[in-house]
């Protein structure tokens, strides 16, 4: 993780310097080598304490307990005794077809939403970066999904998908499909429909992050490319995107995590149906813990999810940033 921080580009406005290429690695390492790290190490602690203490108590401690539960047979019930069971939960999980199915759906969902979100947000960010009129309206509306609690968003979209009173069915019929259909209830269209909502929900944070990246990029690079006669698309692919690489890596990783862990949205939209087609892993482990009272097993599921996702991210980030070095 140290390497990650060090290699991500920084804006150069404050320093008043202009560069013609991706910024070289962090000068911080060079500086601290001059200062001597050992002298500074202890000074960091009091700065970190006010944050660390409540976090240790209310976040790390419950988290560690939550992780530990994954190795027990903890269940709901008055006067239930919890026993340490080691890897038994995990052995059972290997056989749990429904869990892995849900995990698969989670991956499909997370990849689809993250990629679509990225493409859509990049488009919007590029547009917002232009000198178009009504930018104030566009920028405000770009943030609309953020203004609403996820529960409200889900109810609102469910209203829109309603086969009787919602507008979406009328539009789809306008496109030529006839007959009655329920997009959220049909086995083939439920996951895509929910993915659309997922993209909608995640656009604000991705858009403004990319927009910030675009705006802090050097315009000199663009001008140089234009003078060289490069068209808009080539400029995008060969100049813009490479400079944004670290930001893209960061926001897509975060989006992926947040999307994979989505819960409230699917819970309200489809409850994981029809037939488990939209059963995301978080919803699955929620049911395990809150509906059936199997805390130990649910925590084990959580542990497995963390391990696999962290491993995926590790490889993703390592490759992305190695290219940038």
């Amino acid at each position, binding site marked *: 993780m140290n390497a990650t921080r060090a290699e991500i580009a920084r804006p150069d406005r404050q320093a008043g310097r202009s560069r013609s290429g991706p910024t070289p690695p962090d000068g911080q390492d060079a500086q601290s080598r001059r200062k001597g790290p050992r002298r500074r190490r202890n*000074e960091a602690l*009091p*700065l970190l*304490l*006010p944050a660390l*203490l*409540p976090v240790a108590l209310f976040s790390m401690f419950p988290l560690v307990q939550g992780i530990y539960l994954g190795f027990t047979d903890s269940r*709901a*019930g*008055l*006067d*239930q005794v919890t026993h340490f069971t080691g890897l038994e939960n995990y052995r*059972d999980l290997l056989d*749990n077809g*429904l869990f892995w199915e849900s995990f698969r759906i989670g991956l499909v969902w997370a990849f689809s939403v993250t990629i679509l979100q990225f493409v859509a947000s990049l488009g919007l960010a590029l547009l917002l970066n232009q000198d178009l009129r009504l930018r104030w309206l566009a920028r405000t509306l770009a943030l609309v999904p953020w203004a609403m609690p996820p529960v409200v968003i889900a109810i609102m979209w469910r209203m829109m998908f*309603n*086969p*009787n*009173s919602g507008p979406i069915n009328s539009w789809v019929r306008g496109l030529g499909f006839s007959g*009655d*259909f*329920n997009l959220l*209830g*049909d*086995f083939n269209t439920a996951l895509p429909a929910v993915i659309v909502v997922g993209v909608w929900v995640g656009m604000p944070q991705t858009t403004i992050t990319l927009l910030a990246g675009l705006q802090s990029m050097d315009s000199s690079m663009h001008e140089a490319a234009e003078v060289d006669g490069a068209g808009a698309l080539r400029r995008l692919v060969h100049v813009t995107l490479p400079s944004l690489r670290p930001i893209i890596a960061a926001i897509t990783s975060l989006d992926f995590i947040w999307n994979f862990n989505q819960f409230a949205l699917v819970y309200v939209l489809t*409850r*994981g*149906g*029809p*037939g*488990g087609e939209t059963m995301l892993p978080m919803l699955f482990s929620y*049911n395990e813990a*809150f*509906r*059936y*009272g199997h805390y130990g097993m649910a925590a084990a599921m959580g542990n497995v999810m963390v391990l696999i996702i962290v491993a995926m991210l590790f490889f993703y980030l390592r490759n992305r940033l190695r290219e940038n070095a």
Partner: protein
Amino acid sequence: MNVKHLAGVALVACLVASCATSTNESDETSDSGDSEGPVTLRFNSLAFQEPTIEASKAIVDAWNAEHPDIQVEYVQGSWDSVHDQLVTQLQTGKAPDIIHDESADISGFARQGYLADLSPYLSDEVKDAVPEGVWDAVTVDDKVIAAPTLLQSYMVFANTDLLQQAGVDIPAGETWAWDDFQAAAAKATTDDTYGVAWGLAEPTATVTSLGMNFGATFFDGEGDDADITVGDPELALPARIHEMTYDDQSIDPTSLTLSGSDALPGFLHGKYAMTVQGSYVAQQLVQDAPEDFHWAVLPPLSAESAAQAANPQTLSVPAESPHVEEAAEFIDYFMAAQNLAKVAEGDWLIPASSEASDAVAADTGGDNGWNEILNSGEYLTKAPFQSVTNYPQWDDQIATPALQKYFADEISLDELQAELTDGWADVSGG
């Protein structure tokens, strides 16, 4: 060092602040069994419709006036979140003294040992007014863990104009045979209207409950030791629905993927001649039907019998509450005929107590389907699945997906049988 001092001060400030606030908090928690002063009970009510909320609050106010030493505090909860709240509250001992829930949900908590036995505290009057079958639905391990308040049944609502146009006689007997229902649906299906809309997005509750019409039991045994049998009686209802949808083409297949309330607008606007819904839907019909819409509630459906599962709303007391007796007294008061009747009328549900039922009939004059709805109450009784521990998991993970696939015509009846039976082994074994 300056920075160190800053950090130190900030840290101390945080600790002091949290201490200061925590002492304030302890004054606000409801008091715990002081022998001096009035006892305050928290009643988490899930009343949803306006009139029900008013009726519930009126009951609380009346009680408080008559019992200065036992005060009840009305807290508005919501159906959507009650389960999650109870999970955390019961686990940590912070549940309200009077819990409002429904028996399908509360039984799970009862089996986990969280609820108090109310039988020593309920009056004979209340006990006698409620049928055995309904008491069974709230009894776990021989303990009465809740008082059943309101019930619903699945009923057929009909657009009387459309039925008459199709030449179908509006049934008027005690019950209505399934075969006649099937015939009527077929007759009422034309080019622009379907005979029936049936919102089966969550199919398991309907299939296990209404399936009792055909003698379906599904489960044998109680608690952790239950076996499943998916035989002809159990498959009869799903098969019949499938037949009506794909052979007779009298049930709209899209409606099968909708929830009950989502299927309603189509019914109100003449797309369907009939719809199968929970009985409480009558209220929405009264409220939202267009001016020229004529509807009726048809007699309860019957094959072998008209039995359906009783899943009453419940009032319970946590075992760890310091005021079980007082809370039970309030619950008893809530169940009194006039009180329960008012609440039932607000939510358009059937009171569990027959005296309250008579009061509702008197109050409403039996209009707007109340007669049929109240009469259907006599067929409600406990279903075997209600005392099976792993039923919710089987419902979520096995039955619901399998039934949804079957109703979408993606698997055959035999495959349905296999999935339901084999799935139980997975769920109960693990």
